[in-house]
Every structure is written in structure tokens, then in C-alpha cells.
């Protein structure tokens, strides 16, 4: 579950407007904390010869072509984001996220998460599901996040609070 930070959006706007250097610094600092997680996650993406051959790009035709697997593309699809998202139906907006954007990467990430390791496809995938709870289980990104054990999260929040303190000190009327 994400940690809710009150006033983070306003802080980001204020940083960009009044202290652009601090904003950039904060963004960079957050990125530095997330990059190891992303790197580990990409490392869990299998090579092309490790997945069922029929799933590979070139062997899928028609509507399945969109979900065909390519290891390089799937790895590039994993990344992080420090810009706020749109507010969801529940009223929350994400400030900092780690993403697995490609369809093939998402399939590798979540296959068997709900139905179990059954059928003709899922058992042939290498890697195991890791993470707490059904929605936080996965083979790559979620696995890396779980292995990080919240260090990156804590560091990101620390960075946000620290930049807020810096900003407040800067903006204080003397």
C-alpha cells in the first residue's frame, strides 16, 4: 500500500515554481532510490529463449501479436515515474511509482496470480510469484519491490520530507 503524503502535490508545484533547483534535486534523489529496484526488476525478466516459443514476437499473429513477448521490450517497459498521476476513482493520485508498462511484461509479471499455476502456459514460465497479498505478487517488478523490503519507499518519503523542510526554510520570512 502506498503511503499517503498530505500536500505533496502542492509541495511539488511550489518547488518547481520557487525552487526549481531543489525540485530537480529532489526528483533526482528519488530516482536514485528507485533505480536499483527497477534494475533488479528488469533482471527478473527472462530471456527470449526462456519463455514458450509460441509467445515470442513473430510467432504471434493477429490480435495476439500485441501481447507477444520480447525480452528487451519487456525490460524497457519497467521503469519509475516521479510525476503525479491522475486522480483515481477513489480520490488518490500517485506521486512516485514503479511501472511495468508492456503487455508481455505484465503477463509475465502476473500470470497465475489469480488462477494458480495451472494450464498449458503458466507452468512453462520460469520464475516464481513473490510479494504479499494477491495484488502485490509478481515475478519481476513486484518481486524486486518485495526483495527491497521497503527501503526504497522509505528513502523516497524521506527525500520528499527533506525537500519540504528545505523549502519551508527557504520560504520562511526572516
Amino acid at each position: 500500500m502506498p503511503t499517503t503524503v498530505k500536500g505533496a502535490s502542492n509541495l511539488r508545484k511550489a518547488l518547481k515554481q520557487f525552487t526549481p533547483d531543489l525540485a530537480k534535486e529532489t526528483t533526482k534523489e528519488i530516482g536514485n532510490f528507485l533505480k536499483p529496484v527497477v534494475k533488479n526488476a528488469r533482471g527478473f525478466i527472462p530471456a527470449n529463449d526462456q519463455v514458450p516459443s509460441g509467445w515470442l514476437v513473430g510467432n504471434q499473429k493477429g490480435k495476439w501479436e500485441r501481447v507477444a513477448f520480447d525480452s528487451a521490450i519487456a525490460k524497457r517497459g519497467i521503469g519509475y515515474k516521479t510525476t503525479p498521476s491522475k486522480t483515481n476513482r477513489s480520490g488518490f493520485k500517485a506521486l512516485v511509482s514503479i511501472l511495468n508498462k508492456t503487455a508481455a511484461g505484465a503477463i509475465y509479471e502476473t500470470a497465475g496470480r489469480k488462477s494458480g499455476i495451472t494450464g498449458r502456459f503458466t507452468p512453462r514460465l520460469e520464475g516464481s510469484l513473490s510479494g504479499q497479498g494477491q495484488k502485490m505478487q509478481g515475478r519481476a517488478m513486484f518481486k524486486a519491490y518485495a526483495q527491497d523490503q521497503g527501503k526504497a519507499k522509505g528513502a523516497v518519503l524521506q527525500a520528499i520530507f527533506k525537500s519540504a523542510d528545505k523549502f519551508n526554510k527557504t520560504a520562511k520570512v526572516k
Partner: protein
Amino acid sequence: MADLRIDIASEFTGAKAFKKADKATAGLEKGVKRLGATLAATFTTRALVNFAKAFAQDDKAAQLLTRSLNNLGLAFADPQVRAFISELETTSGVVDEKLRPAFQRLLTTTGSVEESQRLLRTALDLSAASGADVVSVSSDLSKAYVGQTRGLAKYGLGLTQAELKAMTFEEIQAKITKLFAGQAQVAADSYAGSIDKIAVAGDNAKEIIGKGLVEALGSAGGTSGLAGSLSGIIKLATIVSDLFVGIGRTVAALGAFFGDGLSPKQAFAEYQKVTAAFRLEDQIARRQYGGAAATKYQKEAAALAKKNLVVVTKQTKIIKEQTALQKAGTLFDIQGAGIIAALKGKISDEERTRLQLQLALLTGNEAAASKLAGEVARSQGLTESLVKYYQGLPSAKNPFSGWLTTLKEAQELASLIAAGDYKKVPLSMAGGNDSGVFSPVVQEMITSSNVSARAGASGNVTVYVQGSVISEADLVEAVSNGLLNRSLSGSPSAIGRLKGSFAG
């Protein structure tokens, strides 16, 4: 498919639905608060009114009892009675609204405060034992005090009606005391009695609060007292009401002014229309509240009513006239039909002219009417001239004037002949000739008084035939010639005779 992502940090900014829900909740909360405030105000007002009512009832009962004491010359005992009632109310759990009437009945019967107090305690015991109302029990006891013991039988004293009648009141009272003494206290000490005591305390509290409320309102009214307060409350309510009306009108006027798609001129016109309607409403409303506006309105209304009355009278008159004309018209129609029918009959020229004139007058044919009127006038003039002419003629004998006399004389003579009185019959009549001279024999027969003689008289009657017939042969020849001539002339009698088909 949504991206797979892990949110490291997020912020709750609130969804639209949340904002709507929040707004709706806030609105609901406000509404509930308003409702609560309204209910609170309502219940508070109702409670205050109830308090005031409770105080009013208690005060009324107390004043009635005080009046009874005064009437009995026991006014000095009023504080004592009040204290007794209050103490009894507390100990027995029976409200003073019941104790006072019960005590009053006993007091008016016995005339003694002490005796009434004693009997009231007895009544409370009997009431607690029987479950009857203390006022009813007191009434029965007061009747028994003066000898009407019938009402006590229902309380189960174990006495017959005869025994009740035979016993004195003191004996009956002793019996009641023996049977039911202490029942009231037991009842008061029970759980139900405790509840009653709490209720009594609550009632007393209501009365006290009500008394305070009335006094407070009286104080608030200043020199005018309670009436001033009530007037002030009404004025305040009126002001609040006017305020609400004013707000509503302002909103309506602004709404009309800022209507969609209106030019400034149109907007101002709409605004004026709305405000004019409100002014009219105010004008009408002010008439109901008296003052100059009401007086003016009454005068205007009276003038209008007077004006309306005149108009109605005129209309009634016109309607009456129209009705009469219609009726007359119907009559003329009947007359016209009669005239036409008469014209078809056999009438004289003058009558025809007159009828035609009437018909022309009925139908409104002026030309014909004037012409016919002239003719009628001329005819009337001619008739008058003729009358004058006849009047101017010398008198002439009526050739028939003697007929009536002659006929009367003939009737008289016929009567005489029928009666056989021939002597009175003139000879000229009996002789049969004009000369009045009869032959001697006939004269004798007429003049003779002896009828038998006249019957027996004999004589010859000579018939003288003048002309060429002298002898019998001449007569026969004359007759034969006559018959022959007639036959030759074609007389029907002759022809019939020849054929034998006629009688002659």
C-alpha cells in the same frame, strides 16, 4: 489494461464523487440541524405551553376552593387547607387537581374543615382499596353524610342497602375505617405509589415552571403585562414573516431582471412587472389590517357597491320592460290571428276596413294604416251624416204598427169563440162578409140565445153565380170545358189521369 505499477507515495485529493458526497452530506447535515432546531423549538414551545396549561388548571382549582372557603366563612383556613392538600399530595401520590375538587365537595357538605380533612383521608383509603377515583369516592361520602348511602354499596363494605340505610354516618365511617384504614398509605408506599409520587412531582414542576413562565411574560410586557408580551410576540412574528416575504420577493425580482436572453430594457420591464405585482399584493394585504388603507378601501367598496346597485336596478328595469314587450308582442300576434280569421268571414265593407286598419297597426304598416284610418274616419263621418239625416227627417207612420193590436184582438176573439161566448163576438166577424149584414135566418141563429133553436133552424141558402152560368147545364158545360182545356194544356194531372198513373 491498466499499467502494472507500485505506488511508492500518493496523496488523497478527493474524487468528484467524494466532493459531491461531501457537499450532499454537508447539506444534509445543515438540514438535519435546521430540522433539529425546528423540532427543538416546537417541542420547547409545546412544553412551555403545557407548563402554562398545567399551572392554569391548578390555579383555577385552587381559586375555586378558596372561593368555597370564603363562601362558607372559612377564609381564614385557606392557608391551612393549601398546606393540607400539598402534604396529602406528597404523601399519597394523588395529584392536587383531584384532591382539591374532592375536598371541595366534602367541605360544601360538611361545612367543617377538620371534618372534611378527616373524610378526605377516609376517601383516599377507600379509593386506594376500591380503585375508584378519589373525587367519586368523596362525592359518595358527602352524599352519605347527608343520608344518601346508596352510593356506598358498590365499595364492598359488606353491608346491605337496608343496613346502610339503618346505620348512621358515624357507624358507616367506623366500618370503612375498620375495613380500609391505611390502604392509601400502603398504596403510596408501593412501587406504583412511588411512580405516582414522581408523576406528582413532575406535575408540580410543570405548574411551577408554568407559573414562572406566565410571570416572566407578564414582566416582559412591561406596564401592559402579559397582553404586552403577547402583542410583542405577534409583532416579532410579523416582522420575521415580512422579512421572509421580502427575501423571497427580492430573489424573484432579481431572477426576473437577470433572466436569460433579455436585453436591458426587457429586463427592466420584467423587473417592473414583478415589483408591480408585489405592490398590488401589498395594497390588497394592507386593507385587511385596518388603518387608512382599509378605510379608503371600505369607502371605495361602498361606492362601487352603490354603483353596482344602480346598474343592477337599471338592468332589472330594462329586463322588466323587455318582458312586458315580449308579452305584448305575443298578445298582438293573437290579435293578428283573430283579425285575419275575421277578415276571412262575411263582414261588411266598413268592418273589413276597420279590421284591415287594426292589422296594419299591428304589423306596423304605416302607409296602409294611414290610408285605412282615413277610410274609417270617412266612413264614420258618413255614418254620422246619415244618422243626422235620418234624425232630420219628419216623423212617418209605421205601416206595421197596427199589426200587433190586430193580432191581440184576434187572439181575444179566438178565446171567446173557444169559450162559446158568441154574444161577445162582433157580428162583423161572425157573419163572414164585409158588410156585416146576414140573411135573417143567419142573423137569428147568431143573435139567438137558444143554441138548440139555432141547431134546429132550417132554411134555404141561395148561391148566386154570376157570369154565363145560369143553369145547371151551363155549370156542367163550364166544368167540362174547363177540364178539357186543362187537359189540352198539358197539365200533369190530366196526363196522369189518362195514363192512370196519377191520383188526380
